[in-house]
């Protein structure tokens, strides 16, 4: 929230430099995001009085003015036709600077010397709302005479320092000049000077002007109203326009400005109705009836629902409570009688209504954060005092306490005293703040404090709604005592050994494995567009096509939670291809979110399932199906899992170049070449390989390393064999058959060559190297021969494989 420093200084003495003020406020928790001095960029711009004007001989639109700038008269050329003799204008002298770093130099315009420049409002960054007339198309003409040569900045209201406060969510009381001044006083140890509020009434009784009926006391705990008769709607004085402008609000007219000024000063949003437009001069605070409509001040037609609170008159809604008034009862130049409203509305109700209608205003923002009913009356009195001050109308009433204000506040909400123990507070913060100092700090924050031994009772001021327990007092005390008093200590509790969870240890070792293999870890968003799941080409009904949907996505790309990591991986591969990276091996671990598991559908109100998954993606000259399978098999092996390979995987894999790995009947992984159709939909060129490993299954199936096998003492016998067989015979099966037929004396059977040639007549030849060994003796050739024969007949029988002749 922005506030001019001069406004804050009306209520508190700031006895330190701007830099020190800023840093002390920040260290007490009153954040300051920025400090601006809008006028600081402007120099050497002074008041000038135009003495005479003549036409430029060589131009039909330039004028040559003689301008008195105090003590001397300068010749200045201007192109603006709105100047006249006797006008007071801002003059940028030779060597002046304007906003944006623009510098002004003496020069010649079509042969005539110009010793400076006459300025427009926009050249000085002065809006019309700040200085009436500044918005004119041409040179800014001052509305009244000023001494030539005087600095223009104070006149135009741009001589202030604007501070942008970052108010914490629990401190709505600081969303106003009084709040900031109160904090400043507590932080700096100076005094908060609340203005004395006196209202001069002009007789009469508010009851004769209007009536108020609050029908929903829960949503409107307090409602006050005052009437201003004989309204004199006019522009506000400079000091008020300047204050509003500094706070980022536009000046409208004195009445509306008073309501905004009071809001910025006291934190209480207000509203002003043209009472003649309030039908029946009757205010009814009630919930909207279904389908009721209202045209709000921003000239939009709003359709309301019955949970929205409205300010209605005898016939219908005339304002949205706490958010925006209605166009119908807007203050105009012709307004004669005004009704001021200052109320407290339920913050949740305002929040929901403002959300539902997409309307966020200065007022709704304050009500959402919480406005204290207790201080409503003060704000209303302040508004009436400003009416007196600006002579904006007559405040109806005999006296402030007699006939001036309707104040409906049936259930006063007073803060409750908080009891605390000084020793416990010290223990909580670990800083030795003396009891008396604690009391002092709380008193400086306007708490009523009593101290009895170590027992502290603190009554929060009405404007503090955030303090209701000892810990809250501890925070107030330490933040003002100073967080820098916290000396580093370490907890005194018993030592407990720390550890990484099993799941983290497993993911860590998976990542280390892939890193050693040359993989680069990636991270992608957990949500995807529904289209990217569809691009996979899965059959209808696949559970991955039923993702968890986000209700309020940022856009198409964040609509659903990914059910598989594959689309993100394919996107990453495509990106690398498009950037001409020749090869890459990427991996990502993360959750896949499922709404269906084991045939059961997630029910409303239940969390979806999260499956921890590893996805690997690769392309490039050195990668093929077997490379990818090798990586995955080795990874599984590192967890003690020997997986069986089955042909085929999900539809987004190449049907002939994909496999599923299973262990103990459970699927652990699938891998292979991406299906060319899928790849094409992801704008991938050429062959890319992907693998998905179910880390939950991996964790379930992992086995610790068994006790070692002792190293053999007897020599091995080696035999090589080349088998010819049909092309379609799976060599994994042949290897398994060899192993089964040979039995326990076979130590290893490894494929070392596959040959395909014309001489084989369409068949293939696979060469295996077999090694036999017995643990307790040296094998004889006869023994091995017998086993070998048995193996040959077995593979012939199972696969029609014959020894190659």
């Amino acid at each position: 929230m922005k506030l001019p420093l001069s406004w804050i200084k009306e209520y508190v003495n700031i006895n330190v430099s701007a830099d020190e003020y800023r840093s002390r406020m920040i260290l007490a928790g009153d954040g300051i995001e920025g400090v601006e001095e809008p006028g600081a960029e402007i120099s050497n711009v002074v008041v000038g009085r135009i003495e005479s004007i003549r036409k430029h001989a060589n131009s039909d639109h330039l004028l040559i003015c003689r301008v008195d700038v105090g003590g001397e008269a300068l010749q200045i050329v201007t192109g603006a036709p709105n100047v006249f003799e006797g006008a007071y204008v801002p003059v940028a002298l030779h060597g002046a600077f304007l906003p944006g770093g623009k510098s002004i130099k003496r020069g010649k315009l079509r042969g005539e010397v110009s010793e400076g420049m006459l300025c427009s409002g926009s050249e000085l960054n002065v809006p019309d709302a700040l200085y009436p007339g500044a918005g004119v198309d041409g040179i800014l003409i001052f509305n009244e005479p000023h001494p030539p040569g005087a600095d223009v900045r104070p006149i135009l209201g741009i001589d202030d320092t604007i501070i942008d406060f970052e108010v914490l969510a629990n401190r709505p009381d600081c969303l106003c000049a009084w709040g900031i001044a109160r904090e400043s006083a507590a932080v700096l140890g100076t005094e908060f000077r609340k203005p004395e509020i006196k209202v001069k009434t002009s007789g009469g009784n508010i009851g004769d002007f209007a009536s108020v009926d609050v029908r929903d006391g829960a949503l409107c705990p307090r409602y006050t109203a005052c009437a201003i008769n004989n309204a004199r709607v006019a522009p506000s004085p400079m000091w008020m326009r300047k204050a509003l402008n500094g706070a980022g609000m536009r000046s409208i007219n004195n009445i509306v400005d008073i309501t905004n000024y009071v809001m910025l000063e006291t934190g209480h949003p207000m509203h002003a109705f043209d009472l003649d437009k309030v039908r029946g001069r009757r205010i009814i605070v009630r919930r909207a009836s279904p389908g009721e409509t209202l045209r709000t001040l921003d000239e939009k037609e709003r359709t309301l629902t019955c949970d929205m609170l409205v300010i209605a008159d005898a016939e219908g809604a005339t304002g949205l409570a706490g958010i925006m008034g209605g166009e119908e009862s807007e203050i105009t130049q012709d307004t004669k009688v005004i009704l001021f409203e200052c109320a407290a509305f339920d913050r949740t109700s305002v929040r929901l209504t403002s959300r539902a209608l997409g309307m966020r205003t200065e007022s709704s923002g304050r009500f959402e954060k919480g406005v204290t009913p207790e201080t409503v009356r003060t704000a209303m009195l302040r508004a009436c005092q400003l009416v007196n001050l600006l002579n904006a109308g007559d405040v109806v009433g005999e006296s402030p306490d007699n006939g001036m204000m309707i104040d409906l506040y049936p259930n006063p909400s007073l803060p409750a005293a908080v009891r605390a123990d000084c020793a416990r507070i010290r223990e909580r913060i670990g800083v030795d703040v003396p009891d008396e100092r604690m009391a002092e700090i709380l008193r400086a924050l306007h708490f009523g404090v009593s101290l009895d031994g170590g027992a502290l009772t603190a009554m929060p001021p009405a404007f503090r709604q955030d303090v209701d327990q000892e810990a809250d007092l501890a925070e107030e005390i330490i933040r003002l005592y100073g967080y820098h008093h916290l000396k580093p200590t370490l907890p005194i509790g018993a030592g407990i050994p720390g550890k990484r969870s099993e799941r983290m240890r497993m993911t860590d070792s998976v990542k280390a494995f892939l890193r050693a293999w040359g993989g680069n870890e990636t991270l992608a968003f957990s949500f995807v567009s529904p289209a990217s799941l569809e691009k996979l080409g899965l059959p209808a009904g696949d559970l991955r096509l039923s993702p968890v949907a986000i209700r309020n996505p940022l856009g198409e790309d964040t609509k659903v939670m990914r059910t598989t990591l594959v689309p993100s991986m394919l996107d990453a591969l495509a990106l690398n291809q498009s950037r001409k990276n020749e090869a890459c091996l990427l991996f990502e671990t993360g959750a896949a979110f499922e709404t269906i598991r084991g045939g059961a559908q997630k029910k409303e109100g239940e969390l979806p399932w999260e499956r921890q998954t590893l996805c690997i993606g690769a392309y490039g000259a050195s990668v093929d199906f077997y490379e990818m399978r090798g990586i995955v098999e080795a990874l599984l092996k590192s967890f003690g899992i020997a997986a069986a390979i089955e042909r085929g995987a999900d539809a987004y894999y190449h049907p002939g170049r994909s496999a599923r790995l299973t262990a103990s009947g459970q699927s652990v992984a699938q891998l292979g070449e991406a299906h060319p159709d899928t790849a094409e939909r992801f704008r991938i060129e050429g062959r890319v390989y992907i693998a998905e490993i179910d880390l939950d299954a991996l964790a379930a199936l992992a086995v610790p390393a068994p006790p070692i096998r002792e190293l053999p003492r007897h020599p091995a016998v080696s035999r090589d064999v080349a088998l010819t067989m049909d092309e379609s015979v799976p060599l994994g099966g042949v290897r398994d058959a060899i192993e089964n037929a040979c039995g326990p004396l076979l130590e290893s059977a490894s494929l070392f060559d596959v040959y395909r040639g014309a001489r084989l007549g369409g068949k293939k030849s696979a060469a295996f190297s077999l090694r036999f060994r017995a643990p307790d003796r040296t094998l004889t050739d006869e023994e091995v021969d017998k086993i070998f024969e048995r193996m040959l007949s077995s593979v012939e029988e199972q696969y029609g494989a014959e020894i190659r002749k």
Partner: protein
Amino acid sequence: MREQIEKLRQEARRAADEANTPAELENARVHYFGKKGSFTLLLRGLGQMPPAERPQAGQRINEARAETELWFDRRAADLKIQERALKLKSETIDVTEPRGARKLGSLHPISIVLNDLVDLFVGMGYETVEGPEIEYDRYNFELLNQPKNHPARDAQDTFYIEDNIVLRSHTSPVQARVMLERKPPIRIISAGRVYRADEVDATHSPVFHQLEGLYIDKRVRMSDLKGTLDIFAKRLYGADAATRFRPSFFPFTEPSAEVDLTCPACKGGGCRVCKGTGWIELLGSGMVNPKVLEMCGIDSSVYSGFAFGIGLERVAMRRYGVSDMRWLFEGDARLLSQFR
């Protein structure tokens, strides 16, 4: 006889010296010491000598033979050395030839930073705990003192799945789960993905990572939080790193503190990185709000604790000079390969 022996010895030594390869030497060896070698023949010739002279002559021949054989052995060793040297020379390759390089893989910078932090806190007795990324409103907000329609909820624009199910907006719901399940003392850290409805730009991402710490025991003080985070800052940013606590507000802690770190770029002098303040925001922290302890079934009159949460992206970006957060989620191998 004596001259004969001497002559043979001279001759054999010369033959050994003249042999240029082990094969030539072997030939010479056979020539002198073989079954029909010169020394053998000489010994055989002893028979024609008078018996009285035989022993002495025999001894002389054997001595000469042994001595010469030693000569041959030395020569053999020399030749072997020579030959090995030649072989080594001939086998010389260009060791600078650029080929055969193994590609080095990499962990994601978030993982690297996370590993460092986990190591640090595990060493201090914390245990890592995981929780779901799609979470009940109750754990993400309500138990953390953010009831429905609490204005602080607006600060973190949350993605909703259902009325009561959200994408977790911080890692703190894991704290709530742990407090409900376990009895103090509790020392846990939890890290992972969190979600907020922030549009993607150079410094924002709707998905990012947090690490959260929670310490609950009897008589835990706010100064213990300061001590813990000081160690953390020094381990992460060097011995001269200091922290500054600044009052702040989080619904689940009271008192709360935003923790700043001396700007690593200027060491506190003020520069562009820290916008002239000498400090950069490091993390949010505070003493666990007694209301949160009570809601999670922990007696706040007996136990107290602290909690802290840090965004990992910012730490990683600062460490590696990554100026655009989007790069971290893009997956370009050229960028990823630069991390170690």
